[in-house]
């Protein structure tokens, strides 16, 4: 995603602090994700003015306001579409997309699938809390069957989406899952996701302490099994990744499920960008070219 950062770039954690502090509920999983992103950017030494953090709408989508990079806090579900435009207009920028499960897998589901098949070069972090928080607790696309919420008071009867399987099927070239309480592990995944050239999908369990009383820190902790702990696991093996993605309940894998590096990025595949980012391009088209455009019509 970024060209090798210059060694002289020094970015301190303090530089990445947003204009205001997060207003998430105390204990919200999103704090851990914010801290991990900031740490990853410092460790990768990416200057904050070269980063654009883009979100949709929801608790977790307030993220860009809490980090000092360029930011876009867009419409519900549309962050990936906006981010694709940003990346194609200036592919020198590091693009981070942050949001929640409702934003990404519900209202934004269409853009989620198509951004992955396009291999847009960005890192998409979903803070997955299996609930709609900002609208005060309704069923989300990742809520489990049977979960009782204000919108499904007698229990959810719809099967949840499996974000990891979906990402693998849609052609994401980097697919990973983290847990916001596993800071070091999560920071590592974010760094890998940023460095990966192509679409990096990172689903992060980020518990909602206010509205989701099923999927709590206590529920997650004993179930988290790091893929890195299994030396036999090969993240280049798509079928193996698909197999692991189906595990749930007693054992839930986190870590890097899959990565492939042989697929061209969207911006890399388009020769129009060979001369450099469009944001720096001359607005005028050479006269001989425009003359040819008119001659075609004569």
């Amino acid at each position: 995603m970024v060209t090798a950062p210059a060694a002289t770039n020094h970015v301190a954690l303090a530089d990445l602090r947003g204009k205001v502090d997060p207003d998430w509920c105390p204990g919200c999983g999103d704090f851990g994700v914010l801290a991990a992103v900031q740490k990853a950017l410092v460790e990768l030494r990416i200057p904050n003015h070269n980063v654009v953090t883009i979100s949709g709408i929801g608790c977790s989508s307030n993220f860009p306001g809490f980090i000092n990079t360029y930011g876009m806090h867009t419409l519900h579900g549309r962050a990936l579409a906006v981010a694709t435009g940003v990346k194609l207009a200036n592919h020198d920028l590091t693009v981070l997309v942050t949001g929640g499960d409702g934003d990404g897998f519900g209202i934004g589901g269409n853009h989620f699938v198509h951004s992955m098949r396009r291999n847009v070069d960005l890192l998409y972090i979903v803070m997955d809390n299996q609930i709609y928080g900002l609208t005060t607790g309704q069923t989300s696309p990742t809520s489990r069957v049977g979960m009782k919420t204000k919108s499904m008071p007698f229990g959810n009867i719809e099967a949840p989406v499996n974000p990891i399987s979906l990402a693998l099927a849609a052609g994401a070239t980097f697919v990973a899952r983290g847990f916001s309480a596993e800071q070091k592990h999560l920071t590592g995944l974010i760094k890998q996701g940023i460095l990966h050239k192509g679409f990096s999908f990172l689903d992060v369990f980020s518990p909602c302490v206010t509205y989701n009383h099923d999927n709590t820190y206590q529920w997650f902790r004993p179930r988290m099994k790091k893929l890195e702990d299994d030396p036999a696991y090969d993240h280049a093996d798509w079928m193996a990744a698909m197999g692991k993605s189906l595990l749930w309940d007693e054992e839930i894998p986190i870590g890097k499920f899959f990565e492939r590096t042989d697929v061209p990025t969207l911006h890399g595949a388009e020769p129009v960008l060979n001369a450099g980012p469009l944001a720096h391009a001359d607005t005028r088209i050479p006269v001989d070219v425009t003359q040819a455009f008119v001659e075609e019509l004569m």
Partner: protein
Amino acid sequence: MKQTFAIGIGGAAGQGVATPGDIFAKIFSRRGLHLNAYNAYQSIIRGGHTFLTIRTGLEKVTNMGDRVDLLIPLNQDAMDRHLGLLSHGAACIYNSDTIKPGVGAEGVQLCPLPVAKLADITRNKVAQNTLAVGAGLNMMGIGFPALREVLAEQFKKKGEAIVSENVDIARAGYDYATTNFRPFAWPLPMTGKSYAVLSGNIAMAMGGAAAGVKFYCAYPMSPATGVLHWMAAHARKAGIMVRQVEDEIGVVNMAIGAAHAGVRSMCATSGGGFALMSEGLGLSAMMETPVVVIDCQRAGPSTGVPTKTEQGDLWQMLGAAFGDYPRVLAAPLDIGDCFKIIPEIFNIADRFQCPGIVLCDLLLSEGRLSVDPKDLDFVPVIDRGELITTASSGPNGDGVYKRYKITESGVSPRAVPGVPGYTHTAASDEHDEDGVLISDEFTNSTKRRAMMEKRMRKVAGIEVAVPPPELWGPRDADITLIGWGSTKGVIEEACEILTEQGISANQLQIRWLVPLHGDAILDILKCARRTIIVENNYSGQFARYLRSETSFVPDGYIRKYDGEPFMPHHIVEAVKEQLIGKSKLSVPAHEILV
């Protein structure tokens, strides 16, 4: 009356109506003749019926006109539908092997072509079309070399054998006409000029390229798809990133993303796609990221009639997205204007950091017009407004950049991502000058009011930047015809016909719909003797808009909502009907059956 000559070619989709049309258009424009072409077609790939009208003349031809001088029916259906359109002096060239002629009006020349005798129809399936083109050009007094040249270009890719086969067939038709058919009374002249022939979609795409558009994206939708096709085909030469996106919601948001990163960004769709984009327009307005969206109107509501024209989206444009925000809305007046309007609206959108909407319609989008190449200016004025693209430019004196700084003009200098020292977040939520949300923890009614007023102050600046409309024709005319957008040409011709018939007429054509310049319009209209609003929709969308903005109520209305454009006589007859007090609302019937 200006002398013009019109050809009508009718047949089933897939029968090759377009190719003879292209050939005639090339030959006319290269002779220095102006032309206007309109294709009435159906949403079907093979079969059905399509009727192409090409009208040519020495002066600008602004619409399809009232008269067909030469009819070329490619099947029986086309003969049956259209022979009745012909009047004295006109001719009909047809394949007498397969088509039975009807009874033409007095003075109509029926020109049967024995196609199987003149060409090997087992080899060439469209021989009847080529023979008819040859015969027709002969009757128009055009020498054969012009046709040979165009055929050679047309079939170049298919090889020399195909070229000569087609040239031979055309020649046979040409020669057959010499001995068997009477030439037309008006041999088509030749001038030293040469024109480009283009559709409104191509014009808007090229206008975008001229305006410095670097990002274009779209979802295919008739009648806007032509913009995508031109952009896609010319993207690499023009240095434009062109993407086909999963839906129009993605389209507008992707376009906004690119615009936010600093490039000029454009997209086009029709009413249905625009409906999906409307939330995005609000995003553009709230983040103050300029984007230009083209709506090519077609007959609605819903899927409606995808291949037919209408001016039925005005209120959708006026109300697109919730909340109050500054927007610019312009309707191009003709195909040449489709080119010019794009750089103009980009300058305004960039200067005032708001969405710009171009309200086109099928008539212009898919119609074709001869345009002087000199009028296609690829180096128009480009004004990007207050844009910060390098660390040294722009105000950052106090070390704290305020993206949404409250200013007198309402415009705040806009830094693009990547510039050191200007990091900020642009949000769809209400925010303060710093970009910090004032929608949750820091909700503040004083700040909210200040931000609303800051954004809305831009409206005053936009009004100054956009010229008021002007009255065309004598001030003291008997009739003032008011139109907007694509009806310019046909109203203009109706005014000429009325004046010739002793009813003096002038025209007020609206190009900028938002801002409207209501006071300037009232100044013009208060001097008018009798006013009629002409528009291509059912409810009089513009009449209602004008009334809501100015309280002005005209004396009458002429409306058409059958999917087909106005022809000059529709307006002329309606005006006369209203002058004798027969009606205040005229809805002309379309006589061409497609």
